[in-house]
């Protein structure tokens, strides 16, 4: 492994310095180029942490579950990193990040690092910042990363497609079984959790999910991997059957390690490169190239937008100084 200057920020990160980790995550969130510069010398250390994503509707008990899961992992002396994403207001750009409240039991444990992240809402920005934050935690020597995001939507899906094990958390009393079969919820799941298993309706929800999984109702992601998502009934608040979830994650991990984890991870990195490159290219061409002015002029002249876009693309590809 290449030697990293211990006094540099990346050196401090490699040594597990929490302040360095926190600052790098901020840079990742801000799209600050110093993030990439500091991560690069330590890049060979990325890939040792296992990344689990916890998603599900608001109120399903995700934060409580992450807290319980982290506690269980700590019992086996694993270092745990938690990244809790909450939404940014599209109106004010502000966010209230309250996941730490339910993770208080973990907050004085030096083996747990908790970071709250606002979704900030730029296209693909959340996925990028979340992946970067996970990479930084990985370099800092964290063994198990738990990434929590609310809801189901494109931004969340992008985030979840960047973790190793996706845990979808549902709870009884939040609509009938059909709610759980809505597009996107089952498809991303590697493990399904029925939380609040002590509440009436939990058994029914588990049965509905079993039927849905058995019927292979478009369980696209898992089916591609030859994996049938197990259903784990537990109570995060009461601490019931958290070990069942730890075991399910372990089985999924073993399955992926047998069936080409490296390939899967490389495919995700290729996608990351594609996104970063296109974003970079787009900003450069659009910003410096004067394409905006050309587009405005063409549109003012009454040209249809698709024609304008095609002409501008052709102009760039011809290598004309746009």
């Amino acid at each position, binding site marked *: 492994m290449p030697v990293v200057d211990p006094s*540099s*920020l990346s050196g401090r990160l490699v040594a597990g310095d*929490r*302040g*360095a*980790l*926190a*600052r790098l*995550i*901020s840079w990742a*969130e*801000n*799209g*600050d*180029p*110093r993030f990439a510069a*500091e991560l690069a010398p330590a890049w060979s250390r990325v890939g040792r942490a296992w990344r689990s994503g916890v998603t599900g509707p608001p109120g399903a008990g995700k934060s409580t579950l992450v807290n319980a899961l982290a506690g269980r992992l700590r019992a086996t002396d694993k270092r745990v990193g938690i990244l809790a994403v909450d939404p*940014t*207001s599209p109106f*004010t*750009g*502000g*966010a*209230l*990040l*309250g996941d*730490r*409240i339910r993770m*208080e039991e973990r*907050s*004085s444990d030096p083996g747990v*690092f*908790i*970071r*709250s992240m*606002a979704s*900030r809402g*730029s296209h693909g*920005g959340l996925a990028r910042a979340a992946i970067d934050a996970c990479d930084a935690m990985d370099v800092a020597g964290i063994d198990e990363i738990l990434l929590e995001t609310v809801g189901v939507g494109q931004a969340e899906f992008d985030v979840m497609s960047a973790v190793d094990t996706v845990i979808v958390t549902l709870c009884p009393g939040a609509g009938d079984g059909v709610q759980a079969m809505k597009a996107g919820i089952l498809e991303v799941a590697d493990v399904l959790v029925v939380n609040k298993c002590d509440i009436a309706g939990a058994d029914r929800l588990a049965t509905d999910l079993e039927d849905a999984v058995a019927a292979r109702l478009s369980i696209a992601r898992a089916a591609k991997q030859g994996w049938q998502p197990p259903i784990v009934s537990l109570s995060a608040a009461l601490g019931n059957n958290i070990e069942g979830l730890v075991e399910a994650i372990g089985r999924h991990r073993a399955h992926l390690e047998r069936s080409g984890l490296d390939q899967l991870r490389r495919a995700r990195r290729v996608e990351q490169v594609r996104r970063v490159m296109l974003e970079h290219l787009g900003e450069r061409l659009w910003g410096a190239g004067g394409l905006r002015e050309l587009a405005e002029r063409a549109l003012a002249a009454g040209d249809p937008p698709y024609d304008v876009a095609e002409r501008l693309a052709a102009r760039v590809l011809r290598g004309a100084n746009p």
Partner: protein
Amino acid sequence: MNERKIRVLVAKPGLDGHDRGAKTVAAVLRDHGMEVIYTGLHQTPEMIAEAALQEDVDVVGLSILSGAHMTLFPRVRAELEKRGIGNVLLTGGGIIPAEDMQALEQGGFAKLFGPGTPTDAIATWIRQQMEKRFAAEAAPRGTR
């Protein structure tokens, strides 16, 4: 580079179960476009400083109504110093007598707010303070 957000930790130190004020201020700061981390009740100075470190906040705001501010506030400050983040903008509010406010403001707290403060005034003050700091940092700086 994306826009940099002001990150604020709102915390309640010690044995004080009254968090209406802290939650109100947290919501107001959120509505002013800030990212606010609220950690809940009964936080020790160590927990507050550790959260401030991990969340890499720019501002720490303490709310206290129990009367223990002269004990707890300096301890939070000491724990922040111990973690190398004594430079965060440190503020707070609650039921704090004027002479105590003065003492704390001389002891590293930038400003304290008492009952009756318009909530927008707190948000505006934080924004002004942070704009000054961000401008000073915009000049090339090393890692902290």
